[in-house]
């Protein structure tokens, strides 16, 4: 691949002129080469091996912890009475939140015709899938008798028992599993043309067969593209409400209960904003090093980072607003339990966690008002990591502080995580990164076909009816191929 000749600042908004979405050598062949090369390296780099070794070890730790848990009982965790939910639920909500960015980028930005999404959507969607996988793990292991978990599914059974449809936990089961299914389909379907490219470029039999199977016989015919575009659009339309619903439903786990600090109508929008916030932060956390390591700066440009930073700023401000309004409502409602819960959050024994949360989520992202912070990848990385930490603590604050001091002071308690809790959390990161590293190694990490539709060569500048998802009757790529561009 040719070197990027000049650093063009595509973050300036020049009236009357579109800033290029992709910089550098944006010929279609160069893009193909650049992306496929990553997945086609004969052997992984030392850094990758090291990272994979660490992640896989942590994954092994995760499964060891799960084994220990299932063998011994929930008591190996720090949960108690009254704090009956602990790290498992915190981690679940945290990972589900992370899992919001991908589908938001793929589906909502697609419908809003935000073409800059093409460079990052594959990546973000992959992250979503892995995050939701990590998330799904926790409700499964957090119950007392995981071997009866299937009772939560509405399966016909000899007991003639349905699950309790009034329980938000059941809604969770539906919401998360639907979200995961749709996200997976969306991700995989969007990847099919790129997988076919990898298949076509494969030099070994194994790769040929593997990518061949995975690409489902894609030939790039006009009819294929047509079906593909239609299906993509439909899935985007299907996924869009799910982005909003899944975290709303997760928030119902708390909001539907009557615990002070949980029982709040603000929870659904607040959770969705928080989820997008944390999801984008995680995308940035992963993207900035990857972009550098795989030299994708021309595809994932400062403009992309800038856009994401703006979304983080927006959602972060919403989250910060929620934090403040919660206090207002607690006071304004006149509910003494609620008032105490919030005072206790800010000043009680868990105040440190509250202030970590508040600083990381409501204060630090405000730096993104400054362009310098939005465009300096490393500053942005630091901020995004803070946001990740803050969002984990947000869930900690919600789950633990509310439970530890509820109505009757006689039953107040204190929660301290055990080493099993902490290793399980670390292990879930191991699982996430294991999948993620495998994705980096074997799959097209940027949606080549989609990026090609927004490069100058695609003729996006020539008129409105160009590009992926732009004109739903035409099949633009077909012509590109024929004309040999």
């Amino acid at each position, binding site marked *: 691949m040719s070197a990027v000749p000049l650093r063009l600042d595509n973050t300036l908004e020049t009236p009357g002129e579109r800033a290029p979405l992709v910089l550098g050598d944006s010929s279609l062949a160069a893009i193909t080469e650049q992306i496929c090369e990553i997945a086609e390296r004969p052997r992984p780099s030392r850094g990758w091996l090291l990272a994979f070794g660490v992640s896989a070890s942590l994954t092994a730790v995760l499964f060891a912890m799960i084994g220990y848990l299932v063998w011994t009982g929930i008591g190996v965790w720090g949960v108690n009475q009254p704090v009956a939910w602990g790290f498992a639920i915190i981690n679940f909500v945290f990972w589900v939140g992370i899992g919001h960015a991908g589908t938001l980028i793929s589906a909502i930005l697609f419908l809003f015709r935000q073409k800059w999404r093409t460079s990052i959507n594959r990546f973000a969607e992959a992250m979503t899938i892995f995050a939701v996988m990590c998330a799904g793990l926790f409700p499964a292991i957090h*119950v007392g008798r995981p071997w009866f978990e299937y009772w939560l599914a509405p399966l016909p059974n000899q007991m003639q028992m349905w699950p309790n449809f009034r329980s938000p936990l059941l809604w969770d089961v539906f919401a998360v599993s639907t979200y995961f299914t749709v996200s997976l389909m969306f991700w995989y379907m969007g990847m099919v043309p790129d997988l076919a490219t990898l298949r076509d470029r494969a030099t070994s039999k194994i790769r040929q067969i593997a990518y061949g199977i995975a690409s489902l016989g894609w030939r790039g015919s006009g009819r294929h593209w047509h079906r593909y575009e239609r299906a993509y659009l439909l899935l985007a339309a299907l996924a869009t409400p799910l982005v909003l619903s899944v975290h709303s439903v997760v928030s119902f786990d708390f909001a539907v209960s009557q615990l002070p600090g949980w029982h709040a109508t603000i929870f659904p929008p607040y959770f969705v904003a928080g989820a997008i916030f944390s999801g984008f932060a995680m995308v940035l956390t992963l993207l900035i090093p990857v972009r550098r390591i795989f030299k994708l700066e021309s595809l994932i440009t400062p403009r992309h980072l800038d856009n994401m930073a703006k979304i983080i700023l927006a959602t972060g401000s919403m989250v910060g607003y929620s934090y403040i309004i919660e206090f207002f409502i607690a006071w304004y409602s006149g509910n003494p339990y609620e008032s105490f819960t919030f005072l206790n959050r800010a000043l009680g024994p868990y105040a440190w966690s509250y202030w970590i949360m508040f600083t990381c989520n409501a204060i630090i992202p405000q730096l993104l008002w400054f362009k310098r912070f939005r465009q300096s990848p490393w500053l942005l990385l630091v901020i995004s990591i803070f946001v990740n930490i803050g969002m984990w603590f947000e869930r900690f604050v919600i789950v633990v502080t509310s439970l530890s001091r509820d109505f009757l002071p*006689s039953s107040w308690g204190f929660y301290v995580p055990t080493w099993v809790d902490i290793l399980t959390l670390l292990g879930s990161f191991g699982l996430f990164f294991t999948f993620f590293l495998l994705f980096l190694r074997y799959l097209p990490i940027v949606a080549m076909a989609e990026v090609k539709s927004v490069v100058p060569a695609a003729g996006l500048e020539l008129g409105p009816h160009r590009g992926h998802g732009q004109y739903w009757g035409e099949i633009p790529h077909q012509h590109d191929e024929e004309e040999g561009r």
Partner: protein
Amino acid sequence: MGLGADGMNASAGGRRVATRYWRSLQELVDSPQFRKRMEEEFPGLAAELDNPATAATRRSFLKVMAASLALAGLTACRWPKERIMPFAYRPEGYVPGVPQNFATALELGGAALGVLVKSVDGRPIKIEGNPLHPSSLGAATAWAQAAVLELYDPERSTTLVRREGGQRRVPTWDDFLAYAGAQMAAFESRRGRGFAVLSEATSSPTVQGLRDALLTRLPEARWYEFEPVSRDAERTGLAQVYGTPLRARFHMHRAQVIVALDSDLLYGHPEALRHAREWGLARRGEDGAMPRLHAAEALLSVTGAAADHRLALPAGSIAALLLQIAAEVARGGVALPTGVGSLSPFAAGSPEADFAARAARDLLRAGQRGLVVVGPGQPADVHAVVAALNDALGAVGWTVTYVADPDPGRGPHLEAIGELAAGLAEGSVEALWVLGGNPAWDAPAELEFAQRLAACQQTLHLSLYDNETSRLCRWHLPRAHALESWGDVRAWDGTVSVVQPLIEPLYGGRTPAEVLAALLGESAFSAYDLTRRSFAARWGSGEDPWRQALSDGVVKGTAWSALAPRLSVEAVAEAAARLAVPPARGRELVLYADGKVYDGRFANSGWLQELPDPITTLTWDNAATLAPEDAKELGVKHGEVVRLTHAGRSVEAPVCVMPGQARGVVGLALGYGRQAGGSVAAGAGVNAYPLRTAAAPHVLAGAEVQRTGRRRLLATAQEHHVIDTLGMAERGRRVGSLIREASLSEYQRYPEFAKNPAWTNARPLWRKIQFKGEHQWGMAIDLSACIGCGACTIACQAENNIPVVGRKQVANGREMHWIRVDRYFAGDPSDPQVRFQPMPCQHCENAPCEAVCPVAATLHSEEGLNQMVYNRCVGTRYCSNNCPYKVRRFNFFNNFAKVPATTRMVFNPEVTVRGRGVMEKCTFCIQRIEAGKIAAKNQRRPLRDGEIVPACAQTCPTKAIVFGDLKDPDSEVSRLHRHPRAYGILEELFTKPRTLYLAKLTNPADVAGEGEASS
């Protein structure tokens, strides 16, 4: 395996090796571990191995093994051989699987508590009070209820043990009989000189008869009685003024004013259950009257918590306060003996003077309906003056009655043990038989009783456990548990009960009577025959009186009659003169009997260790309690270990900061820190006995407290961690609405004070749920009556197979009790008011737990019960999160995995033993509800009110808990639900609890002194 090393030790020990062959087996036999295992597994064989005549060869080993195997089929049965036979005819009244109740009695410190024991197919599983028994009236203390767990304790002594020359051998009962005969023969020739018996306090007429027989045959033998926790000061004090030892009995329901000085008469008294019942019934204010309680005490007690006026005062100043009260009474015109009533140690305007003035004013007004009580920790002189005060008020015969002491000839316990220790030291006691008790551990420290005992060559200890004393004695005999034995005991008031066994002795133990009979060479070496003989001689021969006694659990008309003793004015004056010295200065250490493990004898009971202390809510530990100001002054925090030093002896104990404790006082419970108490007792608390001397058994003046800087995690059932100011303030704000209370006069003016019209009249958004069941169960808990003793918690634990989780889990908030007793403090931390609130599942009609369970494992029955379906529960714990009362309990582990097979016999077969990963909670004792319904249906009659009683309500000493059918408008519970004092806790959440609380009534004197303590 370390076999080689052991083998070498064995060779070095120079034991004779019978043959060259099997050398390794010989070594194996000689290794201590193997020897120990042998004794556990083949007790007889271990003795065989020690017998030089049949020194274990391979051949003899195999012979013994073969014989054991052949006999295994027989010996494995718990029942003795002669009883194994099928029922040809079913015994009358016995239906397999249907529980039967037997009346028996349990004895503690020489006073009996009559109980009914529920037995299922020959297995006693639950102990309840015997309503016919005057000390029980149907209630049972925590320790009495836990006796059934003690019965099944696998760590109880299972064999006889002989310890000689560092060897531990397992003799048989025949060996013991031979030894007893030899002892008798040896000492009879010397008229018993050098022979002594040390008995724990016992009221058994049979044992007393045998004692008399023994002392007739061995006139110079000595019989000592010792209890570490005793009421001898009261006995001595009464003897001082009445000339003969007397026993005082208090009648709370007749009292209008009670002044309790360092006395826990509602909790720490042989008749505490009766006191609590009388107190609980009198304190409801139903007829516009209730007694008023003034309490002055060093440590916050259950009685102090119930008081209307409480003064925190060092125990050493109680005498001064008493004199001050007496002076005020005398000033009121009541004639008191000279020397009493002339001294006012406290300056006017001090809190002590105010307290005394107020108490005296009430006492004067009450006259003979006044009552002054003083605790056993106070010196005899205080008791003497109190007796004079009661006498002057005219209370004797009315609120206090005196009965004769059953054994007027015996000396005080502390003197007896001192005499014995001296005898051992100078060699005048050559042989000592210890029947019960644990003197090596709990005798006064300066006597160095353990060393003296170890030095004695002929010692024998009969005990439930192979404990500290047993290990120093040459012989140890396993004692039969009270539930395994025949016997007879007397209650505090003298009422006789026959103790009958519920089960054959699990480990072949014998009773003290049997051991004495063996010593006397009685042909009837059987507790049954001894008891029967003794009974026939005293209370009528023939079957009828015997059977009646067994059936009732009491022998009617055997209570001692009240005496009208004559007070010696001179003695009172002398006692008062001795008291008229200023109390000792300096920090005071108060040692007290624990409410759960008592003097330490119940330390191996998981139920009792895990029962939260009513006041500190501590489990599995005792602690040095300190007033908050003292803790601040010393710079120590809750849980910090301090060294307590008194007279050169010291122990280290963690600090528990207790509001309401007197300044300058450190409290420490006895009974913890057992060295050989069993695996449950191990590591629980610190041993306070090393500080305790005969001169200062309860109140140790001039103690020092030093910081050590170390910490110990204290497992409290409430406030699992030290609470911050913010939480403390909020708790203070909430208590008022959780526990509603008013004084009696306020209640009379505003009967509906407990109702909150905003919530009782508010209309919910949703339609009220209609329950169609034939019965609608509900509960009412009267906070006026509840004294917070925690008997309900143990009753529930026994009834519902509630697991014990251990100190670590309690510290992490994972205790499993279905009914807890919440304790709150209100007001000034230095003079707090204490409030208790029993908290079972509220069985909300609109239960928040039910809506959130994803698998519908918790549901409502048509009879209004919130039910938990264990085998449907997957364990999401969401229900617990959504329960505003936090009464749900989760099995974080398999809590029964490590319960030994013997202990599993205590399980109630009618209640599921819950597995790990499921939620559980109070069921309102649904098994009892169903049993009651079935019984009524079989008899084709409607259920009667009060027929179904949950375990907590059954055992409640104050009858604070009432259960019944709300659909029956005439039921007691319906009446209480309609009561003006009834309110639902957290009613603003519209959970519609089926458990209502009756607001607490107090009866303080008005500030102006206008408040009438009326009755």
